[in-house]
C-alpha cells in the first residue's frame, strides 16, 4: 500500500507551518512519526492529543475561536462518524474553521474490518452547511488544495486515500471546486473519484472496443460540485457512470442524479459503481476489495453494456 498522499500531508504541514504561525496540528496518535519534521520545527503547534477523537475535534473549535487554523488528523470513521455531532455543532453551526484530514476512508484499511472502514462520509458531511469536501487522489492535489483552503474559516474535510490514481495533472488544473476532464469522449461520461480514476482510465480501451468513446471527468472536490463541467459533458454524451468508493446512499452519484433532475431538458441515462447498501465482511488487500466490489475495468464495461 502506497502512503504517498499521507507523506504529502506531512510535507505540506511542514511547508505551511513554517510560513504560517497560525497552523496547529492535532493528531489522534497516528502519523506521529512522519509528522516529526513539522513537530520539530513547530513544537508549540503540534499535539499528539491521545485517543479521544470527539475531544480532539471539539478542542479544535476553541483553537479556531482564538485565531488558529487547526488541522485534526486521524482515521476517517473516528473523526467523521464518531465526532459527527462535534463537526455539526462546533464548526458547522458556529461557523468556525477546521481542516479534518483523514486516512482510512472507504475500505483502505482492507484487512481491519468494519470498525476501520468509512464509506458514508460524503453523505454525513454534505448536509453540514459550509462544509467543503476534498478528495485528493495524488500528492500534488493535496498540497495545492490544502494551501488553497486551509485558512478560509470553513470546515474542510480532506479524505486522503491510501492509493494514488497515478494520473499526472498540471498544477493549474488543480483548483478547488473544479473538476478535470481527463479524457475527452463522445457517448459516455464516466465520473471517477479518488483512486478509481485509474480504474476508469483502464476501461477506456475495452470500452472503445465496444464502440464507446468515454469522456472521463475527475472530481478532486466533492462539495461544492463542479456542476457546470458535469452538465456540459452530460448534455453531450447523454450517458453517465459514476465510480465512487462510497456507499449507495448520499455519495456523488446522488448529487448527479439530483443535478440532472433539477436541470430542465436533461435526458441522461445513469448508472453507478459503488460499495452498495452493505457492510464489507471480507478481508484481503485493497485490490481484493476492488475486485470483489466491482471496481474493475471489466465491470465498468459490463455495467455500461447492461445498463447504459
Amino acid at each position: 500500500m502506497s502512503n504517498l498522499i499521507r507523506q504529502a500531508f506531512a510535507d505540506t504541514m511542514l511547508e505551511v507551518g513554517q510560513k504560517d504561525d497560525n497552523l496547529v496540528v492535532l493528531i489522534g496518535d497516528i502519523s506521529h512519526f512522519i509528522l516529526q519534521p513539522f513537530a520539530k520545527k513547530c513544537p508549540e503547534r503540534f499535539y499528539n492529543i491521545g485517543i479521544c477523537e470527539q475531544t480532539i475535534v471539539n478542542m479544535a473549535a476553541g483553537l479556531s475561536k482564538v485565531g488558529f487554523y487547526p488541522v485534526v488528523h486521524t482515521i476517517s470513521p473516528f473523526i467523521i462518524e464518531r465526532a459527527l455531532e462535534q463537526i455539526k455543532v462546533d464548526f458547522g453551526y458556529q461557523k468556525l474553521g477546521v481542516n479534518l484530514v483523514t486516512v482510512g476512508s472507504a475500505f483502505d484499511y482492507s484487512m481491519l474490518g468494519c470498525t476501520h472502514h468509512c464509506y458514508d462520509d460524503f453523505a454525513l458531511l454534505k448536509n453540514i452547511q459550509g462544509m467543503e469536501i476534498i478528495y485528493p487522489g495524488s500528492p500534488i492535489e493535496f498540497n495545492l488544495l490544502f494551501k488553497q483552503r486551509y485558512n478560509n474559516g470553513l470546515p474542510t474535510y480532506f479524505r486522503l486515500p491510501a492509493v494514488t490514481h497515478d494520473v499526472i495533472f498540471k498544477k493549474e488544473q488543480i483548483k478547488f471546486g473544479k473538476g478535470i476532464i481527463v479524457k475527452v469522449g463522445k457517448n459516455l461520461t464516466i465520473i471517477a473519484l479518488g483512486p478509481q480514476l485509474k480504474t476508469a482510465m483502464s476501461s477506456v480501451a475495452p470500452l472503445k472496443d465496444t464502440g464507446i468513446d468515454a469522456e472521463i471527468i475527475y472530481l478532486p472536490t466533492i462539495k461544492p460540485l463542479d456542476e457546470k463541467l458535469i452538465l456540459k459533458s452530460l448534455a453531450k454524451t447523454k450517458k453517465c457512470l459514476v465510480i465512487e468508493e462510497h456507499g449507495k446512499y448520499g455519495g456523488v452519484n446522488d448529487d448527479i442524479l439530483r443535478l440532472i433532475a433539477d436541470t430542465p431538458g436533461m435526458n441522461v441515462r445513469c448508472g453507478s459503481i459503488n460499495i452498495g447498501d452493505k457492510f464489507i465482511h471480507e478481508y484481503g488487500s485493497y485490490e481484493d476489495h476492488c475486485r470483489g466490489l466491482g471496481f474493475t475495468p471489466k465491470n465498468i464495461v459490463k455495467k455500461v453494456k447492461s445498463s447504459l
Partner: protein
Amino acid sequence: MDKNKNLRLRIAEIIYKSGEGHIPSAYSLVEILSVLYGEFLKFQSKRPDWPGRDYFILSKGHGCAALYVILEQYGFITKKDLRGKGQPGSILGGHPDASRIPGVEASTGSLGHGIVTAMGIALGLKIKRKQNRVVVLIGDGESNEGTVWETALVAANLKLGNFLVIVDENGSTARVLPVPEMDKKWASFGWEVYNVDGHSEKNIGKILSKLKFKLNGKPKVIIAHTIKGKGVSFIEGDSAWHSRVPNGEEMENIRKELL
C-alpha cells in the same frame, strides 16, 4: 430587594412568559454567575470580542436563563431581549447561541461540548502566550459525558494552568447515574481541586481570588455544591420541576417567595 432574589424572579418570569426553560438548573447557578461577572471575569459588554477579555462558557446550556439575566444586568443584552425570549425574531432561545447573543462564546446545549471548546481556547491562549483566563461551568449531570473526563485527562497532560472548570454539583444526576466523590476524581486526574458552597458568594469569591492562573500549571476545578431550584421552597430538590414551566398560580407563588 436582595439582588439574587431579583435575578431568580426574573429567571422565572422569562421562563413563564416564553413557556420554555429549566428553572432549577438556572437557580443553582445564580450565585456562581453573580460572583464571576461581578468580581472575577474581565469583559467589556459593549465590545464582547475585546481581545483582553476572559473567556466564559456555560457548558450546561440548559441553565441559560441564569446567564441571560446576568448578561442583561451587565449590558450585553437588553430588557427587550429578555422579554422576547423564545419568540420569533428573538436572539434568546432555550440554549445559548453564540451566533446570536453578544457575550456568549460557544453555542451549547449538547452536553460535553462547551468544556472541550473551552480547553481548546485555553490551549490556543497558551500557544499565543496570552494571559486571558478561561472559565467553563459544567453540571454534575453533564459529568456523565465521556468528553468531560477526556478533557480532565487532556488538560492536565497539556498543563493548562489558565483553565478553570466550575462544576455545578446540584445533585441533578444523583438519581440516575451518580458521580460520587467528584473532588477526588478530578484530583486523581491531576487537577487543583476546591470545594465550595455554591450559594455562598463570599466563599466562591474567596477561592477565586486566591487562584493562580499560569500558562504552565495544573488546571483548576471548583466543585460548587448547590441546590437545584435553590431559592423557591416548592422547586428546591423536586426533579419534577426540571423543565417544568410554572402556571399562573405557581408563578404567583414564586413571586411571593422571592419578593
